[in-house]
């Protein structure tokens, strides 16, 4: 019926999206081509076109100058530690709030929600004082602990657990199924989309963390990728853009690759999980 009209509309939609995507991708494009480019040709202003003879010398110099592999190891340990502990602690809590109503449970849940509104960044000084009194400054554990009691995780999982029909719980009970078994074999498999979404968001958030690791670390042994990059920039104060972009690409690429691999899974989960508000 409206074929002509829709075609025109589609054409406009696609052109807007293509232009926007190109603008959005431009910084990433710069990062990649400059990382493989001879620094002198960048300073000469010829950085826009990809190099005809890409070089890995920037990467070689980055790994010689700073211990990025140690940083990578630390980041991976911290990020995994945070995610695992978040799930371990919050799954039972979300279970209680979703399925075991008790008097005052709504009020108690607000205790978790307020945590979402008070990000650690706002509370760095008191948290630093606490870590100091625990003697945990300059450890990986210090970078993990403050993020474990995640209100966001509690919020998302409670939504997901709630959507599991009561009839499933009833039949589980008749089968003689206890709380743990019910969580493990009914609730969690049915909440997979939310678990995937939360996991990726948690990993991306904490891969990104800067302020807190900056404050609680003061040696290369425990520093994470982001802090390592910041230090690297301060040490290599000259405008060696090739080297900087090589380091920048190195700390960004793992997450982006992970996402590209999981994209379908993640987006589908995101669109079906309880993230609608």
């Amino acid at each position: 019926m409206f074929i002509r009209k829709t075609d025109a509309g589609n054409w406009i939609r696609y052109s807007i999206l293509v232009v926007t995507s190109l603008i959005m991708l431009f910084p990433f494009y710069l990062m990649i081509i400059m990382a493989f480019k001879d620094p002198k040709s960048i300073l000469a202003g010829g950085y826009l076109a990809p190099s005809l003879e890409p070089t890995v010398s920037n990467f070689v110099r980055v790994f010689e100058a700073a211990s990025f592999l140690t940083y990578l190891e630390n980041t991976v340990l911290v990020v995994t530690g945070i995610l695992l502990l978040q799930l371990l602690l919050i799954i039972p809590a979300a279970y209680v709030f979703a399925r075991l109503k008790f008097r005052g449970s709504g009020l108690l849940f607000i205790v978790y929600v307020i945590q979402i509104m008070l990000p650690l960044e706002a509370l760095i000084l008191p948290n630093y004082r606490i870590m100091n009194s625990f003697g945990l400054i300059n450890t990986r554990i210090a970078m993990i602990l403050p993020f474990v009691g995640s209100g966001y995780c509690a919020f998302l999982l409670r939504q997901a657990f709630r959507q599991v029909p009561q009839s499933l719980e009833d039949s589980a009970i008749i089968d003689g199924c206890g709380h743990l078994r019910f969580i493990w074999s009914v609730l969690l498999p049915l909440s997979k989309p939310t678990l995937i979404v939360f996991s990726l968001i948690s990993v991306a958030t904490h891969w990104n963390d800067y302020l807190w690791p900056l404050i609680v670390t003061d040696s290369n042994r425990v520093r994470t990728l982001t802090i390592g990059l910041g230090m690297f920039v301060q040490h290599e104060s000259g405008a060696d853009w090739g080297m900087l972009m090589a380091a920048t690409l190195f700390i960004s690429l793992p997450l982006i690759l992970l996402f590209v691999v999981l994209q379908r899974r993640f987006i589908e989960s995101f669109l079906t999980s309880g993230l609608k508000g």
Partner: protein
Amino acid sequence: MLVVVSNTTVEFCHHACLVLSDGLSYSKLHGGGVTTVYKTKRRYLTIFICLLPSLVFLGIFTYYPIVDALHLSLYKSNAFTPQPIFQWFDNYVRFFGNPIFWEVVTNNVIFAVGTIFPTMLLALFFAILVNEVKLKSPFRLALFYPLLVPYAAAAMVWVFMYDPSLGPINKLLGIFGIHSIGWLGDQRYSLLAIMLMTVWKNVGYYMLIYLAGLQNVPAELYDAARTDGANWFLKHLHVTLPLLGPSTLFVFVVSIIQSFKVFTQIYLMTEGGPGYSSNVLIYYTYEYAFKFWQLGRASALTSIMILILLFLVLIVFGVFGRRITYQAG
């Protein structure tokens, strides 16, 4: 119907298992009778065990810090006063009389307003567009990937983008005859430059949230709008927007919180400068706490930030929350 339970988990949770196992099932199936009190007790024990660990963490890393900040904010405490001296609200009074403090607060407000609304509008616009075309995934990826680039890395690229002589932005502007804007080194532009980069970083995430919301809009409503002769803009204004209330609230709250978390890009791109032109509350607090070691002052700033955040979020939920969440439920 039960799937196999992993052995290690069972072993690992053996003790918890004993307590948790059948408390609930009993009380549900055999409710009443002599054993009810015992079952209720058992049920509360389960609840207690499930909540305790996370509450301990929340207590130590969220609630105790609030108390600590409020408490220390009443003391003079810095590198030269090892023993804090109680001085009532002196730290606050000094900030309220300090024009730099107000400049920082103003910057934070400008940053919040100037990132939240453009990001939300763009996110909504692109979500609608992506939802209406057939080929979705390359556009979703192109818009979403900046969320995965750490701020530290994004800051490096954007410092290059903003480079006055070498950077592509000034080269592009040069074509139109606009010459050498010193983006990050110019008081007039530094905050704007940080804001632009932040919008780039977040727009894809909010787009995805809107896209999730759009999956719930029934297609019949659009058919109705079309038969009424509504054009594209009116259709979305009157049909889509009202139905995206819950998503909008969610995005709004998340972005308010985000706008107070802005630190990395400022630390790496401008250090709050030139002067105080791109300094915001978190960065200002960081300076007082970890550069000047004025702990009392920094605690006062922390307390101010806590109050602002709680106040804003209460307002948002108070005004919109009730209506919208019920709509969603």
